[in-house]
């Protein structure tokens, strides 16, 4: 999908493209200007705004990232079935083309907003902003954002959520964290999915997968589960309970939390103009 540099112009970033001004060229007066700024500052800015929306309404927002087909939607289905009585849940679905995932979620009786990204292989903060203005945030406790299936691009974009969860299905191989360090470094929680299939795979070692995660200096917990066979889900629900409780506590203190990888980006943001 990226072979033509697919993730170029999205409905989210189109406004950043302004026609260039016509400036007359002169040969003299060369000068260097240093502007230490994040290249993604527009996205970061929008993400902060999104997080304020979530926080104002006490919503915890979670970004699910993984390869295509590693079980994000199946996990959401199982989670909604188990927790819809406990929490008011909505889902923002990022997909290249179809409404399939959103329809699977709606079939569970939960609101799902579909973002069709077209050729873009990640969600960005502007797209999520459009989606969350279609939701009455006061009606929800927990919002999941299912990112586009892709182990590369999504990790670079703060959407304004609070936690990153990276799924790794056992059919993908236990060395994925080493191959996609940017993605797995971003995880606040790593979910090993489809573990019911471990019995028929002879070369996937969950310990090795966790070791690869630690080699990225990531202390995030790893939980193993099977969404379709309902195995290991209790630990995942406990993690969610904790995350929601902690978030409410933070909000009472007037604090919030940014997902793992964006803490570094935030350092550069701050809207500072040019450094000398």
């Amino acid at each position, binding site marked *: 999908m990226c072979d033509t540099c697919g993730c170029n112009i999205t409905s989210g970033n189109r406004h950043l493209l302004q026609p*260039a001004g016509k400036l007359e*060229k002169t040969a003299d007066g060369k000068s260097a200007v240093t502007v*230490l700024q994040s290249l993604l500052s527009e996205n970061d800015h929008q993400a902060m705004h999104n997080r304020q929306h979530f926080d104002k309404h006490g919503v915890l927002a979670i970004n699910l990232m993984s390869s295509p087909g590693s079980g994000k939607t199946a996990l959401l289905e199982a989670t909604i079935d188990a927790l819809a009585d406990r929490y008011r849940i909505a889902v923002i679905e990022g997909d290249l083309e179809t409404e399939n995932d959103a329809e699977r979620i709606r079939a569970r009786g939960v609101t799902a907003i579909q973002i069709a990204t077209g050729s873009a292989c990640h969600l960005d903060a502007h797209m999520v902003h459009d989606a969350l203005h279609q939701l009455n945030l006061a009606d929800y406790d927990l919002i999941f954002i299912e990112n586009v299936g892709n182990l590369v*691009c999504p990790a670079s974009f703060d959407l304004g959520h609070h936690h990153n969860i990276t799924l790794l299905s056992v059919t993908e191989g236990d060395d994925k964290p080493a191959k996609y360090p940017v993605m797995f470094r971003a995880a606040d929680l790593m979910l090993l999915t489809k573990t019911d299939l471990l019995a028929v795979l002879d070369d996937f070692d969950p310990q090795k997968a966790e070791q690869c995660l630690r080699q990225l200096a990531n202390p995030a917990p790893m939980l193993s589960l099977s969404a379709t066979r309902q195995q290991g889900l209790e630990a995942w629900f406990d993690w969610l309970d904790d995350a929601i409780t902690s978030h409410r506590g933070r909000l009472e203190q007037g604090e919030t939390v940014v997902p793992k990888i964006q803490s570094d980006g935030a350092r550069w943001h701050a809207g500072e103009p040019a450094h000398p």
Partner: protein
Amino acid sequence: MHELSICQSMLSQIEAVARDNRASAVHRVKVQIGPLSGVEPQLLQQAFPIAVAGSIARDAILDIELLPIRIECQQCGGESEATANKLICGHCGHWQTRLLSGDEMLLASLELDRATNKKTATC
């Protein structure tokens, strides 16, 4: 793989700096990238001319400086260089380390032509 959109975002910053400096052209754009930034230098280099076509930076050269990954150990306090998928301490081998640098993605500097005539830019 989102390098084109990064270039587009970078272009809006370049245009802002060029405007502030009443520049008539941008000759060189220097960026600094860490291996953990999620940006592929080669793809960025390819995307750049596409993104800046027709803009004030249309003839600009993109200079990419690759920054090293440096980590600080939370166990022994030592600093060391690391690779993208092995962020463990170079001294004691401990995995609980903190990234000091290596995830940057910065527009570091621009080389501009300043307009000398009175003609004002209209964007």
